[in-house]
């Protein structure tokens, strides 16, 4: 059983993602960008079994699901990207019998050390978010690394030192930063948009936050009104209506 670092000290860095469900269109850019970076990065390889056959099964660190959600008045389609939330008190780490699963003290990233992972899968059973995937070919557990091999990578341009999924996202639905710092852009975004924890009842304290869809502008507004009937002149016939324009002085 693996212990967690002390992350209660003030100023503790909590790196994570903020995912905006208002603008995720489900394009899968984050999922495949993650796959292509990580299959040659820290988690290499992310094996695909039977890739061209009847039932291809591969390891992914980030998947996007689409659901229809009925809010009582209407049904909305929600695209929901799902990856490790880098919880503050993750059971996936504490259940690990070898210390392979661990939370980094310096930034809170939860990682698996492939050299000491024995593939017992306790961690994936412990995670209620389904964020870990087992590579049967390699015999190790894989999970989101928050692109630990990108975010500090001195061989990348500073603007590229962010998780592959964040860099890729075309709508700008993903943001990366320090959620331990209340003054960071991501923390402000969470405060402004009322970002929330996924399944807080488990008390694993996810670092990643989700931003709820904004209120849809699909109801009449006082300014625009429900129709143009109020501003329509009394004219009854088409000829009357055309006549309104007869004397308009319009210069080119």
């Amino acid at each position, binding site marked *: 059983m693996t212990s967690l670092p002390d992350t209660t000290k003030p100023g503790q860095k909590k790196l994570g993602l903020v995912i905006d469900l208002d603008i995720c*269109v489900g394009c899968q850019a984050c999922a*495949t960008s993650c796959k292509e970076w990580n*299959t040659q990065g820290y988690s290499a390889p992310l094996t695909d079994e039977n890739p*061209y056959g009847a039932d291809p099964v591969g390891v992914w660190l980030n998947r996007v699901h689409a659901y229809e959600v009925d809010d009582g008045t209407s049904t909305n389609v929600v695209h929901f990207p799902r990856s490790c939330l880098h919880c503050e008190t993750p059971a996936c780490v504490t259940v690990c019998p070898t210390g392979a699963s*661990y939370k*980094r003290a310096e930034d809170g990233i939860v990682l698996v050390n492939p050299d000491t992972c024995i593939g017992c899968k306790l961690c994936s059973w412990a995670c209620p978010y389904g964020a870990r995937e087992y590579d049967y070919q390699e015999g190790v557990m894989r999970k989101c690394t928050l692109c*630990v091999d990108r975010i500090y990578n001195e061989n990348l341009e500073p603007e590229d030192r962010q998780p592959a999924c964040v860099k890729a996202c075309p709508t700008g639905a993903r943001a990366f930063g320090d959620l331990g710092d209340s003054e960071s852009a991501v923390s402000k975004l969470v405060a402004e948009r009322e970002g929330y924890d996924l399944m807080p009842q488990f008390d694993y304290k996810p670092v990643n936050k989700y931003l709820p869809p904004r209120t849809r502008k699909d109801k009449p507004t006082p300014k625009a009104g429900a129709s*143009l009937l109020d501003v329509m002149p009394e004219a009854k016939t088409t000829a009357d209506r055309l006549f309104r324009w007869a004397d308009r002085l319009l210069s080119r």
Partner: protein
Amino acid sequence: MKAFWSKPAEPQVETSPKTWDEVKTTTCYMCACRCGIRVYLKDGTVTYIDGNSKHPVNKGVICGKGASGIMQHYSPARLTKPLMRVGERGSGEFREVEWEEALRTATLWLSEVRAKDPKKLAFFTGRDQSQGLTGWWASQFGTPNYAAHGGFCSVNMAAAGLYTFGGSFWEFGEPDWKHTKYFMLFGVAEDHASNPIKMGLGKLKKRGAKFVSVNPVKTGYSAIADEWVGVKPGTDGLFAGAIIHELLKADKIDLPYLVRYTNAHWLVIQAPGHPENGLFLRDAEGRPQAVDQTGRLTDALAAELTPRLVGEVTLKDGRKAVPSFDLIARRFLSDEFSPDTVASQCAIPAATIRRIAAELAHVAFEQEVTLDVAWTDWAGRKHDKMTGRPVSMHAMRGISAHSNGFQTCRTIHLLQILLGTIDAPGGFRYKAPFPKPVPPAVKPAGKQGQVKPLTPLAGPPLGFVMGPEDLLVDAKGTPQRIDKAYSWEAPLSAHGLMHMVITNAAKQDPYGIDVLFMYMANMAWNSAMNVPDTIKYLTAKREDGEYVIPRIIYSDAYASETVAYADLILPDTTYLERHDCISLLDRPISEADGPADSIRIPVVEPDRDVRPFQTVLLDLGARLGLPGMVNADFSPKYPGGYPDYIVNHERAPGIGPLAGWRGADGKAQGKGAVNPDQLKRYEENGSYWFHELPDSQKYFRHANKEYLEWAVSFGLLGKAEPIVFQLYSEVLQKFRLAAEGHGAILPPPEHRQRILTHFDPIPCWYAPFEGDMVGEVEYPLHAITQRPMAMYHSWGSQNAWLRQILGRNWLYMSHFRAAALGVTDGDWVYVISHHGRIKVQVKRMDGVNDDTVWTWNAIGKRKGTWGLDANAAESKKGFLLNHIISELLPEREGGYRYSNSDPVTGQAAWYDLKVRIEKAEIGAGVSEPQFDTIKKIPGFKRPNILRFMGGKKKS
């Protein structure tokens, strides 16, 4: 000292690994969006692809497809060597041949055709991004029978825009993402032109602008819309027309904009039965006339003029005339377009239509956007600000792919223009080379007598007709092109009708061909309407045992369903192994802020015996001795292949495929001498070139003097004259007059009513043909497809990663419809059209119009193709609607079957499909029909386990 129970030291993580040794910039080809990408390489292997942050199209982002490019590049479906068919067509039995044999064979076949009758070559190039070259090649060969895939993509939308405001939706323009406050999206193809739209939607929603999606299906972009309008397929024109109705009634239209930029005030002759009825009143010089406030006839194009927009005038000769606006307003003020009339037809409540009209009016007229930018209009008048109405619209499939799409798209453009929003701040913006004259001044070549042995065509095969005199028909009205483009059946078919080539060739209607030469178009499968009969046509034989289509040459990089039906295969490279040129002569990557073009460079060398198609085409051109492709001594003019052509070819003096870094010193752009270092300069700049227009030229470009003069100097326009929006289309009226019997070139009597009905010079709506002909009772439901964002046409299924995201499709229908049919998730049903039936599996959802069923496009695959196992879900569970879409409409009176196309532009009307659903037994649990398995093409290697680690070896 640490306590023994303390946590062990954290493992050391290498946080700065360098998993690449080289990064090259090129252009993506995972869809038609053409984003800038950076390709990371290790020991010559592609390890990672991301977006190029400096690129004007995608600014660093990438999509699900683009980031899976590695798996496309290393696909097991890649062809590896030229192939000659040895078995029967369709068997998939080939022998590998050397390139020299392949090229000699092609040259022999093609030279025979060219010496005898060049039109017997049908050269159609599918999803070609090099139409600047391929169209020119066809023209030098001398065949009019050339087009790319536009005829089944969106030609009715493109033509509607180009014949209305000199621009077009989709990749040829875009909403003013920065300033728009209200955005309406009518239909969409979410697999391409995708990143700019996604980036725009993200920005727009963050700013709090409203986004309305008009689409029968609520997925993808529609899912994040503020308001989803679940329109019934094919009725968007009624919806837009009803909004126009409301705006006209309430006088919420931008009259000053109309008078400045459109033909609203031009007088239309009203003399029924007269040969000039419905044409513009013109003076002796041909200039359109208007009537001013004093009642005097005057030059409608004059700058200083206060014209009347309504009211009839009597001409000296006794004829009457009215401003075109009068006619348009009468049309849309009629009850035909009232919200109450259209509500049930569109499945949109009248109150919703009224509210949206009110919102549009509010944003347009109460929330103007003013930019502090001075500009000069076409007449030289200076303005100190740019003011626009921040309503924008965009459209794609759903508007195209219906037989009423041309007129529907014209209706949407009319709405945009009535609100004063085209190229205005906050509205819809052109992208270079647009705006162009309405329509562009290029006419199609290939009239009778213009097609001669060993002779180039007099011009390009594709262009824009201005009247019946420009049609490609003989004296009897018989089509001259194999696809019947520019005939009375599809007069404005600016992109040809690729979907009719195989049918017409097999039926020898209007004539048989000798060689069918295709590139990158899966015409034996998901790009065909009516797959089963298309396969019959491709394999049909004459009595003497020869195939009716005697020779088929096909070039593609991948083993698609079409490969098995060709006699000679010329294997292409992947997009990472080639030079390409995304040119202003074709479909450039321009942005609204300025023109842009780009190149692809070979970031890796092919590891197979394949060649870039464009280089092969130039090689064939040289072997055939085509003018422009050989020197005086018949040596090849471009021995260096496509890159040689890209740099050295000049279409007109100083104008070549690429606009950037021209001139001997590389300092010219647009026009300039050939620069031998041009490709190097592109590579140094990330493989693109972009010229940002000065702020004073970014809006109102159709009437912006500075812009128009710059566009002439740059080579985009011939004259610096204002481009006047044609709300009323005189071109269409000319066809109507011919159908009434006026003029020298008349349609055959059997086509006249069709022309009269659909060539309305004022935007109109008519019911899509198939639904109208087969009847609501027998076929009550619409069946359409949507484009999955992570797949581009059929290409995605060979991709190990993308097929894990979407490896099979379902038939989606509303809970209401499913309950009525007694089916639930997982049940099997027959989908039956007038043409055939398929058996598929159902899923239910809420976000779909109740009268519509739909599925993802092009997921179904034929067994044995695309490098997939024959048991792949794509083949066993996946399916296509194409099998039940007929390429011909049901018989009309007299037995004639028109193509299933828009009657104006020839656009394939595959969204018109009407069906009924019947519950089916599970049976074998596979989709139907199933086709024979295609034999394995030589060269395949298909791993069972994929450990893709880029350049790294697994330790």
